[in-house]
């Protein structure tokens, strides 16, 4: 399946794009998505250990399965306030 991934802040700047389309296996988890991202975009790899992942605008665990049409977002460490 093809999943659209939103990138913010340092991640967006690392590759100069605010979203990317990623091809994943149909039973892919959040963990697999992160691994695929790191392989496909080496510039993101050093930033990935500190990211949180959101699926459909809520925090996702690493073993959560991604469904077609999900809104996935990669969230580097926050700086609000």
């Amino acid at each position, binding site marked *: 399946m093809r999943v659209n991934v939103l990138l913010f802040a340092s991640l967006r700047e690392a590759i100069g794009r605010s979203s990317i389309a990623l091809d994943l296996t149909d039973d892919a988890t959040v963990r697999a998505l992160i691994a695929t991202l790191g392989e496909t975009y080496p510039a993101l790899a050093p930033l990935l250990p500190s990211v949180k992942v959101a699926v459909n605008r809520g*925090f996702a665990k690493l073993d959560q399965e991604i469904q077609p049409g999900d809104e996935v977002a990669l969230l580097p460490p926050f700086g*609000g*306030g």
Partner: protein
Amino acid sequence: MMEDYVEITTRPIRADEIVGRLASPKIGAVATFVGTVRGIEADERIDHLEYEAYQEMAIAELRRICSEVKARWRTIQGIAIVHRIGSVPVGEAAVVIGVTAAHRPEVFDALRYAIDRLKETVPIWKKGGGRWISED
């Protein structure tokens, strides 16, 4: 029950306007927190910070904080949280939080909880002096 109010805006935030949103004859205490942009970041002078948000999720997380506060402190009447994004000059407010109750004791604890949770759970980022800044 007082309606809570959350907003992410590119415009300057006025704390008095936010306190006004929480007005109610039931309240006898309003605590506000105003987080402002510091002119020094990592020992370097800066003149502004650049904020960005994952807007839809940030709004959802701000609403969640309001719910959490009211679940923990049953006497809290209203909460308003407004965060500014875009370029915020030194000295101006990046975030304003207001918490109200009939009496004062719980507003301080609730306010502290709200700003601490905001920093942990709300997808907002800031850049200053060429660096992304986080407390993590």
